[in-house]
């Protein structure tokens, strides 16, 4: 029994939405980075589903590239979070309001 494409799309849509809501609701930088990761993985799921559907290898390759990019993004995010923690003893976005706006 094969799972139809729509199932994958629904799951990835749900993942993406959870990530989006997490990013908007959470106030902890680490959890925000986690939410972004979730959104990127939703895209990865689509790539792999598409790759299986079309019988084409490029989608799986793309998923690897996206993982690398996600790792790089989180690395920079954590580095900045460390800088912020040294400065303010907090990684809570509620405490970051020195730039008005």
């Amino acid at each position, binding site marked *: 029994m094969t799972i139809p494409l729509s199932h994958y799309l629904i799951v990835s849509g749900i993942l993406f939405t959870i990530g989006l809501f997490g990013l908007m609701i959470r106030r902890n930088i680490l959890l925000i980075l986690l939410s972004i990761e979730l959104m990127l993985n939703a895209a990865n799921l689509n790539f792999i589903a598409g790759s299986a559907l079309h019988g084409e290898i*490029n989608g799986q390759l793309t998923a690897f590239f996206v993982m690398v990019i996600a790792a790089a993004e989180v690395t920079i995010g954590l580095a900045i979070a460390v800088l912020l923690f040294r400065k303010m003893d907090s990684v809570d976005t509620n405490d970051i309001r020195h730039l008005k706006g």
Partner: protein
Amino acid sequence: MNIMWSLLIPEWTVFAFLMILLFGEMFSREFSGKLASQVTFLGSFVTLIACFSVLGVTDSTFGGSFMVDSLATFFKIFFAITLIGVVPMCHEFFDRRLKNPGEFYLVLWSSLLGLFFLVSANDLLLLFIALEIFTLSLYIMAAYLKHELLSIEAGLKYLILGSLASAFMIYGISLIYVSCGSTSFPVIREVFALRTTHSLILLGILFILSGVCFKVAAVPFQFWVPDVYEGAPTPVVAYLSVASKAAGFAILLKLLFTVFIPFEAARTLMFSVLAAMTILYGNLGALVQTNIKRLFGYSSIGHAGYLLIGIAVGGEAGTSALLYYLVAYGLTNIAAFIVITEVGRRVGSDKIDAYRGLAKRSPFLAGTFFVALLSLAGVPPLAGFFGKFLVLLAAVRGGLGWLALLGALAVAISLFYYLSLVRMMYIEESSSEQAIGVSPVSRFLLVILTASIILVGFWQEPVLSFTRTAVHALF
């Protein structure tokens, strides 16, 4: 598969300088000091020359995923010139503040490498990776003053919101991949031309466009701009305001006019509404600012609005006007930010109050800033005026008269805040009469930039014919 390495001469040059800096950094102490900025300055000229090696060439390699055409070459030359303008600013700004400023130039080169691949990408995957190389470098650059809270905060905000935009973009790309079975532009174009109402592709396009609109700072994706502009180091803001915007428009031009061609009717409506909102938001927001970098943030949003008119109109007239506007905006913004860097360094403040009586303290800086502000506001006969004129003319001819009217009204609003800066510099008295010096390189660059703002305004034909050739790649 035959790979034509000669097509990648500009990229190789950038890569070579990236490596020189990387290894220089590792093995030589001197490199992390003054030498790095000098090598970078030299390298930006070499890169500019290297870009001319692919001038007029139209070809693709790497299985068609890397494409050189007149539009890509136009943008490469544009970015190389931007780098030439930005490096002396970085030297002024960072070399005094940091112990090892050399590393900064390493990040700067890697962002440029991303930009060069971005404008040549003929495949959504390459496009996305190149864009990420560029923006990841920008996050680092925005947070580069690691002892200043404002810079860290700017970097963090930019990172979170930028990653959100990237997530939207890659999700859109994944939807398009699912429906087309490929990330290559020609394949997507064929599939989309056959199935113009395929809902997954349309959804994918919307996701990608919202990601790109973030880069160009179109309302409602503009909320990061004022904060990042205020907090990030001034030279980085200059680079960001010109390069990031140009990169966003390069993607929009490429995607909308060569890949998603049947999207045209929706494009005009969507982008004229976006342009109208962006122009209004940027220019009204700028009225109440007290920090010069924040003011330029809002003004750059306003300019993005005019550039979006070019996308909404489309066709050869709209897109070549857009490129002309981009050139004028780039030259003027770099000139303005050189002045802001100099004033910020000598006076120690980015508040607008610091510009009180600038004409007495440094007639040269005040004079060049005056020309730059007038060009940004769109006063004839400067470059900015013809940019606005061409874009609005294209809008009228393209049947978007209401948008042109709105754009013309917004010029009046923008005159108010630009001229109030001029009034502050020339009429009001400063608390301090101490003269402000200018470093020789900045002085030289400012003279060149001011001259070219005036020249490009008076003598538009060379630039205009260059932009027309560039957009021939699209139609």
